[in-house]
């Protein structure tokens, strides 16, 4: 008896409600953008500069007492949060302390860290600084720029690749799906105020990679079916292609999500934000390859006669490797 996520053969009409799915996508994108504008992002030190200190202690963390101990040091804007994680247990209490970039210095000085450590140990002798990370305003500015370039270059390259391998309508659809995914990911980061740092950018790019993977597989089948069924209406060919690849789409999303959920639950709190972003992206990415990308291709229409393109762009890799 085999485990089947979907029946052997399906013929769901994915495009019957395409107005509704398009509307859902648009609303989700708009809401994400609004959240981004209104609530902003919780930038990590990579992007905003400053210092982040992780403390660990067998004794319970009292945020108020920590703040009282650190206030006399006059370090400017100071944020203290306790970190909770199911894997910590009773004897492991973790807090994150965020210091703003200090006037007139790039990365934090050893003296400042020593002062913080001394102040905290006066309060709780068993506290240790598990990690100290400090990024100067100069570097953080550059990191923001590099991150932006990375995402933009990724999108551009993918657009060109899809255009070469398929047709421009596919490229537009694929990139629109990517924008959709990235904006929705940024939206959830804004709404939940998850720390947004360099690792998050890596996560966004992974989402782009996964989503495009998904989109391309369906496009590939669509191209094949367009050649096969030259007279079938476009919407029917698309429905057929999506149905034919549905089992694969869900299988791959399923295995990837299985792996990610394991990482989310067991991978520790240090990378949880990163893993969460990817997990969310897989879910959104699967949806967008089914709907956003296809809806747009459907809207733009597509060239139906593939037979004359020969060795030009829009051909399949034909040779057999083994």
């Amino acid at each position, binding site marked *: 008896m085999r485990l089947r996520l979907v029946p052997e053969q399906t013929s769901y009409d994915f495009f019957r409600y395409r107005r509704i799915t398009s509307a859902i996508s648009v609303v989700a994108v708009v809401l994400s953008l609004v959240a981004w504008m209104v609530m902003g992002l919780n930038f990590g030190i990579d992007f905003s500069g400053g210092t982040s200190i992780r403390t660990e202690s067998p004794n319970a963390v009292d945020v108020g007492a920590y703040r009282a101990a650190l206030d006399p040091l006059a370090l400017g804007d100071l944020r203290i949060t306790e970190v909770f994680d199911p894997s910590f247990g009773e004897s492991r209490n973790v807090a994150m302390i965020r210091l703003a970039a200090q006037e007139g210095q790039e990365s934090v000085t050893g003296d400042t860290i020593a002062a913080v450590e001394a102040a905290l140990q006066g309060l709780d002798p068993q506290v240790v600084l598990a990690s100290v990370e400090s990024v100067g305003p100069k570097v953080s500015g550059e990191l923001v720029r590099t991150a932006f370039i990375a995402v933009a270059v990724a999108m551009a390259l993918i657009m060109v690749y899809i255009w070469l391998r398929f047709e421009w309508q596919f490229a537009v659809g694929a990139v629109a799906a990517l924008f959709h995914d990235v904006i929705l990911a940024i939206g959830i980061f804004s709404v939940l105020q998850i720390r947004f740092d*360099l690792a998050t*950018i890596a996560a966004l790019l992974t989402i*782009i990679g*996964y989503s495009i993977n998904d989109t391309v597989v369906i496009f590939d089948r669509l191209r094949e079916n367009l050649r096969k069924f030259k007279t079938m209406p476009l919407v029917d060919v698309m429905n057929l292609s999506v149905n034919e690849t549905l089992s*694969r789409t869900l299988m791959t999303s399923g295995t*990837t999500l*299985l792996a990610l959920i394991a990482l989310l639950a067991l991978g520790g709190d240090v990378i949880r934000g990163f893993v969460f972003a990817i997990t969310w992206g897989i879910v959104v990415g699967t949806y967008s390859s089914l709907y956003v990308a296809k809806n747009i291709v459907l809207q733009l229409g597509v060239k139906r006669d593939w037979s004359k393109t020969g060795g030009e762009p829009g051909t399949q890799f034909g040779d057999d490797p083994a």
Partner: protein
Amino acid sequence: MLQIPIWKRVVIWGLVACGLLLAMPNLFYSRVETHNDAARVVESTGAETPELSADLGRWPSFLPSGLVNLGLDLRGGAHLLAEVQVADVYEDRMRGLWPDVRNALRAERDAVGPIRRVDGPAGELHVRIGNADGMDRAVAVVRDLSRPIVSLTGAGASDIEVRGEGDLLVVALSEAERQATDNRAIQQSLEIIRRRVDEVGTREPTIQRQGETRILIQVPGIGSAAELKALIGTTARLTFQPVVSRTTDPGASPGPGNVILPSLDEQGVFYVIEDRVVVSGEELTDAQPAFDQNGRPAVNFRFNPTGARKFGDYTAENIGSPFAIVLDDEVISAPTIQSHIPGGSGIITGRFTVEDSTQLAVLLRAGALPAELIFLEERTIGPELGQDSIEAGALACIVAFVAVLVFMGLSYGLFGLFANVALVMNVALIFGLLSLIGATLTLPGIAGIVLTIGMAVDANVLVFERIREELRTARGPARAIEQGYEKALSAILDANITTFLIAAILFTLGSGPVRGFAVTLGLGIITSVFTAIFVTRLIMVTWFDRARPKTIEV
């Protein structure tokens, strides 16, 4: 129909075997690490103690011993990004040039009149001359002080630019010289930092140039970044001392008032040196690669006025005897004094290549950091936190792995099992490749592996789903398998090429942990495509040849 030539089978299994062999040392991480550390010590000292032999014996030397490097976030340690304040160097150069300019202009007093140094913008030397009509002469005289630049790109250019503005003589470094100076300042800082860090003997520090004027320093196992900063800030000690004799016996008695020091670049050579400093590195203002009058590579150096006087007196009295240039109790070189050297600048000749003279100039300047270092970024990760991350990551990997194996087995039965074998090999191959290229595994890198585990089955899923479809058209199992592979290939390649593009971008633009993620993701794509279209297929075909099933169920 389903035939794979024997040579292809051999190549495929050969590659898999290589990958497994390369990945194996990681299963015995601490053992191999002890072995590698011991091997490094033996190689650098040449001596093998029984202890080291025992450590060496912990891993057979005929097996590969490459390991996946653990990033700072996993091992714990300190990370610093320092910016070299290269503009400081321009200032120093101008300050050092002023006495020469003054002397040269004073000799032409009749033409240029009285001279006076006035304040100018940073990095420029401004001199007001009494007689503006003599400016052409003044410019020509100062220009004579310039030296040609010895570099690959700046050939033919001179190091300073001199121009007259009314009665104001302006001297500045030329653009080519600025670039050369920047480069030298960075090289020199790298060299000094490397020596400083090596001194504490931590394992595999990373010290590399980043961008134009930055240096990245990563030292695993060090307690804190503050400690590392203190270490890098310490100035190296450079001295010029009289040489008594040269020997190959490190145990020789140097005699009263002398010390015995090893040679830096000649193995087994030692110098007996008077424990008396003639001039020290603090008094050296500059050293440059150059050529002597016979066109052989040499090194020019220059002292400040006090150093120049001491050096001049000493060389006058000791023509024909060698003196040693000592850095950190090692003799860099021991040239013979050819003539009295007045004026505080001299030339070191020897059997140098251009690289040698460049390196020696770097070493000579390496006495002190050429410019201040400003730290732009620092990260300290405690070793416990790193250990926790490794454990959490490993656990997540195993659980993810098992979950995917079970899921695939349930979904595709025997074929799922084939895919699972390929998946196990896939992970082994990733580790093999990581070890081979000496890549660094970071925490996001582990996430990359977990993600790869999830996504690696994609190619197999594509093929299996395709085979299912082909089976429905009932053209026999062999034909279905063949068609399945053929038709799925286009989608597999398109999907993976786009993802690989992403990994490449991440690698190019990312730094540190993000790069670690890009590496595992990129390698994971390569290995997963390889295992899916070659390994799984080979297993499937081999099985099919043996079993000859009439029907198959995927």
